[in-house]
């Protein structure tokens, strides 16, 4: 397990995403209202670039015609066949136990803390006064 600095927080405003490469893997970093999530850019169904999908909310219903909308921006809809994945867990909505996209641990840390600890900043010059998104792989 190594830690990788993949972005500064201001590179990914709320509602936006960033695709990064770590150890040859493509990973999407998502900012959901200030919280950051990371999932692999590969749909477990037929391999689409999942992170190009639309960011959507959770649609449920208490009964026919009673649409309940919540968790705005917390799900990712595959750009091909439209399966929905929970950005918090990587689980698919339809088969949460069977079909999930790999998700990764993310932390936001200050440059100061990072410089003191051991870390790998593959693409970044880390400076003390900034906030960074750190991925554990």
């Amino acid at each position: 397990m190594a830690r990788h600095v993949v972005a500064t927080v201001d590179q990914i405003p709320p509602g936006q995403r960033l695709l990064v490469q770590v150890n040859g893997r493509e990973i999407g970093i998502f900012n959901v209202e200030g919280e950051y999530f990371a999932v692999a850019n590969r749909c477990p169904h037929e391999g689409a670039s999942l992170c190009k999908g639309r960011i959507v909310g959770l649609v449920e219903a208490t009964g026919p015609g009673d649409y309940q909308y919540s968790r705005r921006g917390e799900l990712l809809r595959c750009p091909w066949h439209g399966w929905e994945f929970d950005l918090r867990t990587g689980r698919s909505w339809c088969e949460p136990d069977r079909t999930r996209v790999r998700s990764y641990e993310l932390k936001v840390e200050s440059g100061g803390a990072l410089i003191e600890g051991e870390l790998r900043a593959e693409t970044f010059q880390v400076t003390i006064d900034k906030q960074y998104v750190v991925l554990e792989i």
Partner: protein
Amino acid sequence: MSTIELERPRASSYKLRVIDCDIHPAMTSWTEVHPYLEARWIEHLSVYGSHLRHAFSEALSHPRMSPDAARIDAYPEEGGPPGSSLELMRKQHLDPNGIEVGMLIPLRWNPGSQRNLDLGAALTRAMNTWQVERWVKQEPRLRASVLVAQEDTVASVAEIDARGGDPNFTQILILPKTDEPLGRRRYWPIYEAAVRNNLPITIHVGGTNGHPSTGGGWTSYYMEEHHSVAQTMQAVVASLVFEGVLERFPQLRVVIMEGGLGWVPSLNARMDKHWARLRSEVPHVRKPPSEYVREQVWFSTQPMEEPATSAELIDLFDRIGWDRLLFSTDYPHWDFDDPRYAFRANLTQAQREQLLYENARKFYRLD
């Protein structure tokens, strides 16, 4: 808890070789066909647009769950709808997916469903030339389809005869929602022309004819509408069998495209069973229906069925006949199938090659 993990096969371990029987080319702007369309029809379209048997002049009856029914990663950066950029098609599909030959299936305007027959026929002529000029001449991997406006059989036959000798075209294209079931006699001159020109007939999902998408009325949801194309295709196959088309034209070869596969064994058995009881009504059907299907009908694979187990899928292919399956992706549409992952079954390398390449090579006589 088991998690499905897809690992892309290493490029070196497995070279993809694919014939894609269903690629949808689009126009960046409809002015692209202007060079091939008479001025009168350009003006007509600008003023009156499409005149179909459904509620919206420009939109489909049931809005899709994805815009343009497309993969949302298929929009060209330079603008235009998915399928309109050859460069993106190459970069995103033809090159990485090992497509050696791709069959074009143009869907714009539904010429065969136009109520104005002259407009429909003019559109087919223009779109057929457009396929060659805009696509096939630019990209040797692509092939065109002879789109016909089937309700005008005279014009359809003329167009088939006009294109029949042109190697850029590999098949005749009809959308199944025709005014009457495709087996009815009014369409037979088209089959005659197909046989004369040695071209198969491909019936690709689509069209609009004013009939509800089920025998019991209209569907409310896209979920139903999307499902109904499988029933529509069953009706087409039954029609070709029972009206005697396949008996009358033993050389005719038909592709059912994008209509699913899961229903084929059941429909065959159903037709056989009830033909046995009711054959006095249709004495022109001389052998069990499934035999006609087995000999003269092929099926494209997308959208691939996804049964729970590999064994179920293999059993399905066994029942249909492995040599009757033609791989297709439906690029750039949302229900696209990736040649690497579409078959959720443990296939041998030979089976995989047969499905992805060999069957279509033989069927389209691509040597």
